[in-house]
């Protein structure tokens, strides 16, 4: 079994279903937390700060940020639960421990978590999409494909976060990942502002992050500027999943396999 084919294994979907069952019990609070916060930032920056200027060559700040925030919502939704939630499920709640006494492969557990983060990204991102379309910031029917891209991006964001949750010694150390990786990724991901004034080396780093490519796709879908390049961006993220997925394999196995 390899970590990519594991995404399609029946047990992965059972792990997914386990998270869905648990989530259903506190769904509303979870939705609120994941939507209200980005939405508050979006309103404050987009309409508050954005009222004073517009971006040369890109129009209003709020219009620029709207698709970017889809990427941000996906990143937040997937990263937090894949890191914090998975750590809890593995270490405190013994969820994985009982799964591996049944014939569940550790890679199926990881895949189930990736699928679950894909669902979270798609759900929260789509809710955000509905909100911004209410503000008239969505300009194309291509936007209907956003949930698919949100799910793909969610997997790409979940893999490193889950990896970190398997590496850290205590839950608090997860903040290293949030502060040193996730947050900077947002800053250079083209969420808030265009990157064409960035120095080349910083742009090169941005190019290596999945968020940068996902945001480009969301922008094309929301603005209706879809081209072959958009397809290439999607391929980049898919390829990243294919490569990233192999990195945590040995540490997942060392913790959960015999």
């Amino acid at each position, binding site marked *: 079994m390899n970590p990519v084919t594991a995404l399609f294994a029946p047990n992965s979907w059972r792990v997914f279903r386990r998270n869905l069952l648990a989530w259903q019990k506190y769904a509303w609070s979870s939705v609120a937390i994941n939507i209200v916060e980005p939405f508050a930032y979006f309103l404050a920056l987009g309409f508050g700060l954005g009222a004073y200027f517009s971006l040369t060559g890109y129009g209003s700040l709020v219009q620029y940020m709207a698709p970017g925030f889809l990427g941000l919502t996906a990143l937040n939704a997937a990263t937090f639960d894949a890191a914090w939630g998975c750590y809890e499920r593995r270490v405190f709640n013994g969820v994985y*421990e009982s799964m591996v006494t049944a014939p569940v492969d550790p890679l199926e557990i990881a895949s189930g978590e990736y699928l679950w983060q894909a669902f979270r990204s798609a759900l929260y991102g789509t809710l955000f999409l509905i909100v911004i379309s209410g503000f008239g910031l969505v300009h194309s029917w291509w936007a209907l494909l956003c949930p698919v891209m949100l799910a793909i991006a969610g997997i790409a964001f979940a893999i490193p976060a889950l990896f970190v949750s398997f590496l850290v010694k205590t839950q608090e150390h997860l903040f290293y990942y949030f502060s040193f990786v996730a947050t900077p990724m947002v800053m250079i991901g083209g969420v808030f502002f265009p990157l064409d004034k960035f120095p080349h080396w910083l742009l090169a780093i941005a190019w290596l992050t999945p968020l940068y490519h996902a945001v480009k796709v969301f922008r094309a879908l929301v603005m209706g500027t879809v081209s072959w390049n958009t397809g290439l961006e999607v391929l980049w993220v898919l390829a990243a999943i294919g490569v990233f997925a192999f990195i945590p394999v040995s540490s997942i196995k060392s913790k959960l396999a015999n």
Partner: protein
Amino acid sequence: MLKRRNKWRIIGSWFLLPPERCLRRLAATRYGGHAKVLPGSLCFKRESRKPTMCAMSSIVVNARSLTKRYGQIEAVRGIDFAISAGECYGFLGVNGAGKTSTMKMIYCRIARTSGDLSVLGMDAARDASRIKQRLGVVAQENALDPELDVIENLLLYASFFGITGKAARRKAEELLELVAISGKERALVRELSGGMKRRLVIARALVNDPDILVLDEPTTGLDPQARLLVWEKLTRLLDGGLTLLLTTHYMEEAARLCNRVAVIDEGKILAEGSPEQLIAQFAARDVLEIVDAEGRLPADIHLNGLVVRRERHGDTHYLYNSDNRILLHRLAELGFDPPRHVARQATLEDVFLNMTGRELAE
């Protein structure tokens, strides 16, 4: 359904067993499935550790010079044992003796460092997934999902064995009834008492109709009533023909449930046999505990051969002998009438403490 299936399993397996084992199985079924081992029915002579009376096909777990090392720490230091279908085999030992490591190797949670280990005829390292399919595991930590309710815990676990839909629900309800937590289907796990949680884990371990139920300290931390209830359920499973493999540091538990016990200490098996055999071998039938602060107890160690072994812990003397009445009579003849004494039968605890040292290891 569970009962009927197991009954057929018992009857069916009789054809494969030599008469010796059939008798024993019959005795086990008839007398409550424990502690009634017929004389001479030990499957393995302890000296040779080679199968003598059992058919090879009935051996479900077989370990040869099994070791487990964590870095510098040697948790299991070359142990041999073989467990037959339908018996209850217990590992008796204090914390850190290597019981849990041994169990984890059997249920394929950790890999052995060296030696051989086969479970249900399959290699524990190579065929982990196939072995897990046929095992029921009650780990030391309950590991119930606190975010799911009782029935969801069972259904999710069943789904990992490919048991879904109506079949899974029927199975779950049947098992909840078996362990006496019916009516709590929608309760969250954290709302259950310790005993209920343990019984739920046992129910969960049975969803796949396992061939072996592996229990790591099934009653540790439970109050006496909850413990009794767990014992009752386990006895029932044993009567149904299920093979049980458990660890415990309660002598009473081992004596009550197990046909055979391995006393394990510092990663080694010190002795193995039926509870009665162990008592006969390592302690005498009776124990006379005498508190003697003044040192008036006759110094003649064996008291003319009446006392098999003699130990002292503080002011308390332990005289292992074959009959307390005769010994007390003899002591009276010698002019020593012990003011404070306890005359009792030897227990597994005596065996255990004798072999591992009377002081607690920790």
